[in-house]
């Protein structure tokens, strides 16, 4: 894959990721802002309102129709968080010109421009009807977190672990903040984001670089003037002396209980320790041959799923398992027992080799997906590092057992959240 990065104005980058192997292309624009309790609900509402209509395609019907005409291009926007930052992603996936009888890349760029930069505006604000309806949809979405118990347990664990820290913020916003939002103040927030945030544009797939570059500069350029974005630093989840582990149990009428645990680490996201932690994570709970899978599931038969994941941006580890309400102690003890074994170096060179090979396959998955490749580069860009998938793999291969043990020893239990099932479901 060929890649090149350029600036189209100050604070606005454009990256090309070129490869011939896919039949579709992706064009994305990311806006990055600090995570902030005061404005997250507005920020989260913007992608919803953008989907409703533009100056040229003022209704959802017309906007969808236009995308469908372009061989079912899928256009959308969403919000996520990366460390202490919120990230709005607006993206369109479309068929590459070589598989259809016409050239659509110009039309696609124009559509994405309309979608992001030319929303339907009435009396100096977003359309009030759209805003009202999308506030209702946002409210339902926030309430809907409870539908997925696994996700719910993870979010709860995170909120407890990071109480008082920006990272506790739920990226979809808060119901109590919705009332105060109207078309005008939402449009003000939109303009702040468009004019001041850090912007990253990606075009991935197969295309003529000069043509697409001109398309993007001509279409997006007028809306993306020079800027000095303030995206702030992420405060890492560091090891604390004399920590008091937070332990919260919530009861709910569900069949399966969910155990979620959070650990501090504090290793720097840009450091060799991060690579050691990646290998650690694979051996401990991030693969089908991991310590957690083989012991909590296969040996003790306590869970169907159990895994750990390391969050590079915040430098913390999360563990999740679906277990029987009465088996909390057994599951918890085994999870901690396996961690202690990792900390004392009780794992083999073979396991390290297996983890490195498994991670190579995972890296192959990144390279074999345009959106995953884009995500890889976007994530590194936010951390301020230039790294290719191959150099990432090289770094992983240099990791030694000693460094894995050192990485494991940075982990400190901070929070235990238990969603305890109390009765069967009624039908």
């Amino acid at each position, binding site marked *: 894959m060929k890649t090149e990065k350029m600036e189209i104005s100050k604070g606005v980058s454009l990256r090309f990721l070129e490869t011939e192997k*896919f039949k*579709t292309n992706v064009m994305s624009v990311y806006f990055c802002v600090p995570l902030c309790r005061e404005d997250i609900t507005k920020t989260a509402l913007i992608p919803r309102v953008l989907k409703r209509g533009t100056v040229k395609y003022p209704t959802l*019907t017309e906007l969808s129709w236009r995308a*469908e005409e372009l*061989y079912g291009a899928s256009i959308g926007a969403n919000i996520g968080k990366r460390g202490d930052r919120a990230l709005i992603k607006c993206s369109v996936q479309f068929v590459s010109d070589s598989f259809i009888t016409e050239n659509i890349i110009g039309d696609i760029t124009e559509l994405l421009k309309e979608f992001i930069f030319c929303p339907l505006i009435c009396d100096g604000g977003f359309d009030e009807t759209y805003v009202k309806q999308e506030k209702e949809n946002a409210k339902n979405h926030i309430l809907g977190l409870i539908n997925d118990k696994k996700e719910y347990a993870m979010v709860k664990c995170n909120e407890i672990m990071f109480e008082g820290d920006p990272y506790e913020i739920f990226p979809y916003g808060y119901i109590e903040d919705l009332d105060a939002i109207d078309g005008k103040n939402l449009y003000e927030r939109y303009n702040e984001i468009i004019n001041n945030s850090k912007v990253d544009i990606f075009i991935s797939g197969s295309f003529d670089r000069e043509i697409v570059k001109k398309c993007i500069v001509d279409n997006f350029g007028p809306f993306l003037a020079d800027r000095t974005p303030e995206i702030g630093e992420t405060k890492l989840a560091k090891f604390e002396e004399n920590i008091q582990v937070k332990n919260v149990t919530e009861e709910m009428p569900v*069949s399966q209980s969910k155990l979620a645990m959070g650990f501090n680490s504090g290793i720097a996201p840009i450091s060799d320790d991060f690579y050691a932690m990646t290998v650690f994570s694979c051996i401990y709970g991030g693969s089908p041959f991991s310590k957690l899978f083989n012991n909590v599931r296969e040996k003790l038969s306590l869970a169907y799923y159990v895994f750990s994941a390391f969050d590079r941006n915040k430098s913390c580890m999360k563990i999740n398992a679906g277990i029987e309400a009465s088996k909390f102690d057994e599951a918890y003890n085994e999870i901690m027992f396996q961690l202690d074994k990792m900390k004392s170096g009780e794992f083999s060179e073979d396991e390290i080799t297996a983890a490195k090979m498994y991670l190579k*396959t995972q890296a192959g998955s990144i390279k074999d997906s345009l959106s995953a490749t884009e995500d890889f580069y976007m994530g590194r860009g936010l951390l301020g590092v230039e790294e290719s998938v191959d150099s990432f793999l090289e770094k992983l291969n240099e990791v030694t057992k000693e460094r894995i043990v050192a990485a494991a020893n940075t982990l400190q239990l901070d929070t235990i959240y238990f969603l305890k099932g109390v009765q069967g479901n009624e039908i």
Partner: protein
Amino acid sequence: MKFEKTENKALKESILFGIHESGLRVYIIPKAGFCKYYAIYATEYGSIDDVLKVPKTGEEIKLPDGIAHFLEHKLFEEEDGENAFDKFALTGASSNAFTSFDMTAYLYSCTDKFYENLDILLEFVNNPYFTDENVAKEQGIIGQEIKMYDDDPGWRLFFNMLQGMYHNNTVKTDIAGTVESISHITPQLLYDCCKAYYNPSNMILVMVGDIDPDEAVKYIDKHVSPEKDMGKIERRLVQEPCEVVKKVVHQKLSVSKPLFLIGFKEKETGICGAELVEKQIKTDILLEVLFGKSSGFFMELYGEGLIDGSFSKDSELEKSYGFSSVSGESKDPDSVYRRVLEYLEKAKTEKLDEKVVAVAKRVLIGQNLRRFNSVENLGNDFIRSFMNGIDPLAYNDMVEKVTMEELEARLREHFDEACCTMSVIDPLEETENDK
């Protein structure tokens, strides 16, 4: 063994197909430029197979619900106390398996050592090892899997629809069975199923990537013996009335807002090949035209707050079962249900708009092209096509060929109120959601 090649020059794709001397059907989808290789090895045996008719003797064995899925879990277990995941760990491959209504599949993806991994795959699937002890252990793990799905509103919504829809078709049985049904599974039953359903003529192997057929065949020769061949296992055909069991099925779970799934049962089963794919295409074009995001119907209900962005449409037409559906979240599923039925009745009396149909065809063609973006998607989608006797490379041309008359006929025939079931998941308590 010999391979035959089919090609689609416009798509720049081809497929190699051959039948191994054991009866195993083998497909290779050459894919250059991708880092990963993929292999999927499947038997035409799934949760709908509730009675095993033993080849040769003709003896019929009633099977406990969930046994196909149980067997899928257990095949990973090896005689030496290890499991196949540990073997794949030595090569770096990422392996998995799944059980659906009519198929059980074992798969891996890898960047290196494709043939070594193929060796592991073919070895573990063809060498079952079951003991009382390892069966008992799995009952605990699968028990947790069943409970996880019991709490999953989307999963319950789907199976409640099937139970409301089907009288006799075993597609309504939960894939993993119940904690009670799996307690009847014994090593002997697992061996019986394995011997019959995992015989070469009942299986398909699909490999995706830059693969040397001769090299792959060496490993097939090594593990898949013609002696094991017992011919294709007959699937019991059940008589299923057109009408549904129940019009509406409700369940309460801890959700924030009601979820609905409105399904239409397919009347005709037993068809396969081009006929089946044509039917799929017609149904998908109609769903796109009638319920797509640019349809007037979607906008109207969205504007009224009856549905939201979660509204979607789907169809699943297979040889032994079939249905199409619309689903989403709504504060008032009964109104959505009534509006959907009224809308369809009205649509049946009108002509379809040619321009709208043309755009819907483009959407289908665009979606089909996306399948080629991932070796895993290709393997998973195409193995299903091969099982149904479908040439997946002909898809785009078949979409183009569908006529207005055929679509209108399909609309009148398929979307029938008598074949319609709505499944609803309600919140446990009335919430203050609707101010």
